[in-house]
């Protein structure tokens, strides 16, 4: 209905292959970015920024990471949490060993460590696929979790056995550590997430994205077209783990402030997987939607119940959240296996053909 596309024609391939070929979409994304960068930092409360926006964005990034592997390349992974952990721990080691380099650089660089570990555990995908591969990623999850707990070197032999984030500043403004304001941290997280989302969208729309999807849809045909399966899969593992690693590092340095190994347990992997499923396999927009829904559900649910006159305890709320998430997953798989992203696409299509039904 709001899509008035008459007169939007493309005279070159660059315009035709743009991320948002429809001008209304371009306007929409511009508004979202303006609000995210220009309005929210000034209007949102610290609670809103700290407890909702920052983790939402970080989880979105992790979800994009897993989506690259599972959604785009069709490789099921249950080790997301561990790959995030690799990012967090390597960032910690780098930041404490080389304090002269800025923390934000280390946050991004830690992704490479995660990518390396990802490749290592992706190697079995040479010979195995499907659920077998999922077991390989579980091995990564349990092994790495064990490492986080049992190797004190990783936490610089802290007695608490936890990562403790120190204060670091950018242009004199604290960005990490207890003094860092939520606004500052929010803007850093937002910038990293926006840039990395843009890069991911470049990847998935181009040759590499097509290779991933080809491997996912019909690996035999992909191979007969000269796509090297192992390289393609390892690349997916590397990129996916990179994203998860950066998300993990941000989670600790820009959100939690300190973290123990449990932050990167298998439950974290499951949570991210559920975000991918509900958001939509193979969709970047869906990654944000999935993260938003799964992450905000436990926050919104008690308030919703409360406003309905059914105040509930937080434990109960948590249980109900689990049930709702589980039910939603099944619901989505039945109704729309491609999740919220597909629903959004359908809605958009409806708006484009409005008032026609098709």
């Amino acid at each position, binding site marked *: 209905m709001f899509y008035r*596309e*008459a*007169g939007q024609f*493309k*005279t070159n*391939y660059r315009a035709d292959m743009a991320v948002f070929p429809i001008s209304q979409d371009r306007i929409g994304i511009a508004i979202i970015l303006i609000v995210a960068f220009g309005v929210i930092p000034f209007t949102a409360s610290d609670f809103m920024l700290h407890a909702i926006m920052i983790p939402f964005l970080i989880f979105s990034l992790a979800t994009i990471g897993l989506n690259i592997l599972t959604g785009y390349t069709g490789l099921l992974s249950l080790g997301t949490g561990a790959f995030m952990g690799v990012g967090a721990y390597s960032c910690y080691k780098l930041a404490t060993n080389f304090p002269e380099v800025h923390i934000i650089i280390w946050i991004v660089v830690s992704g490479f460590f995660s990518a390396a570990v990802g490749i290592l555990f992706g190697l079995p995908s040479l010979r195995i696929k499907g659920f077998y591969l999922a077991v390989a990623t579980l091995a990564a999850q349990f092994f790495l979790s064990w490492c986080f707990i049992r190797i004190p070197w990783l936490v610089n032999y802290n007695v608490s056995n936890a990562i403790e984030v120190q204060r670091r500043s950018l242009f004199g403004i604290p960005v990490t550590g207890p003094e860092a304001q939520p606004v500052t941290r929010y803007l850093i997280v937002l910038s990293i997430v926006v840039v990395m989302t843009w890069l991911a969208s470049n990847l998935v729309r181009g040759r590499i994205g097509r290779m991933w999807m080809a491997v996912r849809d019909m690996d035999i045909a992909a191979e007969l077209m000269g796509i090297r399966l192992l390289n393609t899969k390892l690349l997916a593992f590397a990129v996916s783990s990179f994203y998860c690693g950066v998300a993990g590092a941000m989670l600790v340095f820009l959100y939690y402030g300190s973290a123990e190994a449990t932050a990167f347990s298998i439950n974290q992997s499951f949570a991210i997987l559920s975000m991918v499923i509900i958001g939509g396999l193979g969709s970047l927009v869906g990654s944000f939607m999935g993260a938003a829904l799964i992450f905000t559900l436990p926050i919104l649910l008690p308030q919703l119940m409360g406003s309905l006159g059914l105040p509930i305890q937080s434990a109960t709320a948590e249980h109900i959240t689990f049930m709702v998430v589980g039910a939603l997953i099944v619901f989505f798989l039945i109704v729309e296996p491609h999740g919220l992203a597909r629903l959004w696409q359908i809605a958009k299509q409806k708006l484009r*053909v409005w008032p*026609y*039904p098709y």
Partner: protein
Amino acid sequence: MAQNAIDKSVDTFPKFLLVNARERGQRPAIREKDLGIWQTWTWAQVKDEVKALALGLKELGVERGDKVAIIGSNKPRLYWSMCATQSIGGVPVPVYQDAVAEEMVFVLQHAGAKIAIVENQEQVDKVLSMSDRLPSISHVIYDEPRGLRDYDHTRLKWLNEVQKIGRKAAESKYSGDAWEKMIAEGKGSDIAVILYTSGTTGNPKGVMLTYDSVVISSQNANAFDRLTEKEEVIAYLPMAWVGDHIFSYAQSYVAGYTVNCPESPETIIEDRREIGTSYAFAPPRVYENLLTLTMVRMEDAGRFKRGMFHYFLNHARRWGEKILNKEPVPLGARLIYWLGELLVYGPMKNRYGFTNVRVAYTAGEAIGPEIFRYYRSLGINLKQLYGQTEAAVYITAQPDGEIYADTVGKPSPDVEIKIEPSGEVLFRSPGVFAGYYKDPEKTAETKTPDGWVKSGDAGFFDPKTGHLKIIDRAKDVGKLNDGTLFAPKYIENKLKFYPNIKEAVALGSSRDFVTVMLNIDLVSVGSWAERNNVIYGSYQELAAHPRVYQMLAEHVDEVNKSLSEEGPMAGAQIKRFLILHKELDADDGELTRTQKVRRGFIAERYGPLAEGLYSGAKEVDITTELTFEDGRKGTVSARVKIQDMKTHPPAAAPMDKAA
């Protein structure tokens, strides 16, 4: 544009091309959706392309006065071929590309074309298949090389090759401004183009139009609707039709606006939306199809959407035209209309690709008042005009703000009109044709020595509005045996306004009463059948279905009722009708290439049915021959039912009109 209009020295299209290349060289002249995007050529580029092609043609031996046939769908290179031909003094002869070989051979022979520039393998095959009957043709030039690699290329040339020859010639033989000099030799009084009209009877006639007539007509039209170089039009109607020639070629060259060629016939609606035309021209059929499509789709919509759609449509019906005509409208109605614009009208216009449309014309046939009002109520400035090939289109047109569903407007600028006692409309204008090619006899029949042209249409000026009203072809207006006036087309049009009726053929001249043969609209009736669980296995079966008969009988009854209220027409109500078992088809000769029914031919072809209509039979058996798309022939047999209708008594207040 204004400048062009004044500059009398610019009097041929090649000259306009030079002007455009100079003054708006970087503006888009023509686009084609090809390889997924809109490939664009600026006026400067078009000039280069046309020059190369023109000199190439010259090298192939095209001399001043030679005829060049152009056969194919709307493609930039074919439009360039026209200008290229004109630039070296040749005369382009566009030919209907869907004509079967037999029809094509007549035109090519008659015109004595020296070169045929064709679109693709299909057309090449057609021309080559009759090459022994076309000794005049020295070369066949094709645009699309696919599948032609292994053909004998002694007389066959790829258009790009011709251009290559031309470019080489431009460097040596015709270096400098030799080509521009050739263009300068052209005069306004030269023949610009020969357009063959597909007469309802007999062989096509070649209408010769001079540059003067086409240019002046175009200039007047551009001025009338204030068209500028910024217009975007979609070229999809046959290039051999005068309408396309004027709108997609002549007016574009004169105003400098952009012409867009669709990707394929199937994607026109999509392509039109992408481009968002600002100036549209189409026969009523196009508007009817769009509306039918809309209604069919909305039937499938959810209850809410359907309700909303109809609510706002009703509101628009009431207020839309008034708002468009800038009449005073209450604020409340305006607000609801504004909301409707947001929810329905705007999106609908967007779907049609009419969001940016400034002026849209319907011409060629009468349009259903309902359909006409529908588009206007959405806020689309749809207008009617009356035109003919012999007039370089424009005879009358509706000025902005004076729009009526049942008139064709006031005389266009510089056009004089008079009505003969027989009711026939005569006109005289600078756009009038020079004569029929190689047919002085017919020319004399049609055009009086003092320049008046017999339109062949019967009509009258509406005293209230001063607009012309056309009722039918003058020769088709007949009488029943009791002397009642019988205007078959008038009745047919009334019937065709129902979306379920695709075609109608009215019989009655020199008969006791009026009968009609109907063609159902498969899209509309098919969709109705689906909704109402009417099961059918074929077109024939659906057409014979009792419930379809029942539905159409209601339509016929309504037409009878409206006829009864129209004084002289009241006596010509429909007494009996039948539904034809096959679709009328141009390939079978039942329709003209412009999709007009050939009434006489049909009455003959379906003789048994016509007899049955008057014999009182309830059912008639018939076997008909038909032509498949690939040219094979077959037959189809059917038993067709005939239904009797009641007539309504004439209304009390008779209206006194019609000649």
